[in-house]
């Protein structure tokens, strides 16, 4: 029932909206970070889960959104009405250029070429004088909203700014995946040959979703650099791409709630485990392997399975 779905999402949104009234400081920032990575992971899932394009270079667009924001502010362009669209647009443009090269390939070649091109972006960030190379960039202020009473320097205001953008993005992505366009993407994932025989130009669909996913990743990057006041090249390195893909796999490919749950789980586990040991990657890896082995649809797939007929019935 769609109405129950909407109620569920309204409840999630309300709960997230209430967070600043309950907690502040570290926990608010922590929740804010989860929001940002939920968006980043969901944008990757448009490619990996819905279209079957496993990208190992998605962090490049996240990084471009972040660097664009930091560089503009450093250059004195501080008004949000410029900074926000510029960050999203630049990520989308980069995705168009990189996507045009990648979508000609499939399978392992696609994975490799997204990885290679993203590393190229990484080296640019590493070596360009604009980006502060290995040291990264500090942001001394957040962009100015230009609206009376809204000051993004205030962490609570910034939290609501993030929640608004992430919520809107999820709304748009939800629309997208259930639209004729989104259904065609899923058809291309399942059987590209048949889609072509039915008159769908697969390349156009793939490039379009690549650009859309890049734009949302850039938006996540824009929020991220504002949250941290800092960005360095490690955020767009291949392991950052691998990490966000891990979030998608943990939560469940091919759903939008999956990546959100995956992001929360990943960031939560990282926080908990790293408070005990520096070697948090190992337990995290084990947990991921267990999830992949026992819940092929990730945590959300497992949950849906339990609710319908038991998790292991296909």
């Amino acid at each position, binding site marked *: 029932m769609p109405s129950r779905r909407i109620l569920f999402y309204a409840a999630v949104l309300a709960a997230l909206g209430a967070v600043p009234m309950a907690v502040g400081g570290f926990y608010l920032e922590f929740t804010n970070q989860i929001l940002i990575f939920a968006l980043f992971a969901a944008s990757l899932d448009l490619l990996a889960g819905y279209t079957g394009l496993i990208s190992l270079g998605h962090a490049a667009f996240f990084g471009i959104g972040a660097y664009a924001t930091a560089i503009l502010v450093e250059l004195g362009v501080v008004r949000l009405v410029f900074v926000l669209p510029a960050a999203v647009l630049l990520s989308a443009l980069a995705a168009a250029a990189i996507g045009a090269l990648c979508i000609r390939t499939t399978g392992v070649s696609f994975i490799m070429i997204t990885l290679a091109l993203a590393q190229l972006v990484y080296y640019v960030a590493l070596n360009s004088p604009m980006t502060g190379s290995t040291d990264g960039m500090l942001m001394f202020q957040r962009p100015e909203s230009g609206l009376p009473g809204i000051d993004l320097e205030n962490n609570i205001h910034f939290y609501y700014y993030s929640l608004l953008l992430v919520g809107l993005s999820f709304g748009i992505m939800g*629309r*997208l995946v*259930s*639209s*004729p*366009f*989104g*259904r*065609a993407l*899923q*058809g291309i994932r*399942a*059987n590209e*040959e*048949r*889609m*072509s*025989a*039915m*008159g*769908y*130009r*697969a390349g*156009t*669909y793939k490039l*379009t979703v690549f650009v859309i996913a890049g734009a949302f990743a850039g938006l996540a990057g824009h929020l991220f650099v504002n949250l941290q006041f800092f960005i360095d090249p490690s955020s767009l390195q291949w392991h950052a791409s691998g990490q966000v893909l891990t979030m998608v796999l943990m939560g469940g490919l091919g759903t939008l709630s999956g990546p959100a749950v995956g992001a929360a789980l990943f960031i939560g586990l990282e926080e908990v485990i790293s408070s005990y040991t520096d070697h948090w990657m190992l337990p995290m890896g084990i947990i991921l392997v267990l999830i992949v082995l026992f819940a092929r649809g990730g945590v959300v797939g497992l949950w849906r399975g339990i609710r319908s007929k038991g998790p292991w019935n296909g």
Partner: protein
Amino acid sequence: MGEHSTILASRGLGKSFGALQVNRNINLDVRLGEALAIIGPNGAGKTTLINQIAGAMRPDEGQILFLGQNITGFPAYRMARLGIGRSFQRTTLFPEFTVFENMRLAAQSQLPGWFHIWRPASGWEDINDAAMETLETVGLAGRSQLAAGALSHGEQRQLELGMALALRPQLLLLDEPMAGMSLDESLRITELLLKLKGTITLVLVEHDMDAVFAIADRIAVLVYGELLAVGDPETIRNDPAVVEAYLGEG
């Protein structure tokens, strides 16, 4: 050339896989509105010919003309948009999607434009109705909510055919639509194709000779990659070369 207008023509069409020449110098005219059957032994190159006309494979030599336009080497999606629909010999569905969603995607291809993102797919009534109508045509309306992969083999073949029909093509290429069907099912499909006959041009690759002789206006015989004969069913049935090369065995 006479009183017939030609919808599709191949001129000197040739295709090889490595050293194996699978189609050789094929000159075939398909007349507007006719039902043309292509028969021939296994491995004769029938599917390869269909694949080239449908744009799934690029010819090595020769030309393909559709309504006088040179369409040689066009990609599959362009062929489909020109009005050339095809079904596959090896069932090619979306097995995890419902039967309805399979058909809906086929019907959705008829939407003008492609970037429809604001209204959910379920909200396009025309497309839903067209999908349901075609499901009824191929006798699958009662199965619409099942996963396509859960259908019986015969039902999957029906869906395969229906999805090609849903494109409302001018020229429909059918690659062994009856393969693996029960007698009942293939009779039903024969009936359906007889009903379609005249409204669209049919090119039918089929081993089921009862179906071929019931449906075809003309028959082309392909042997070892070459066209051996083209003619009306009576002529083909009595052609000694055809009988020796193909019909004799069955």
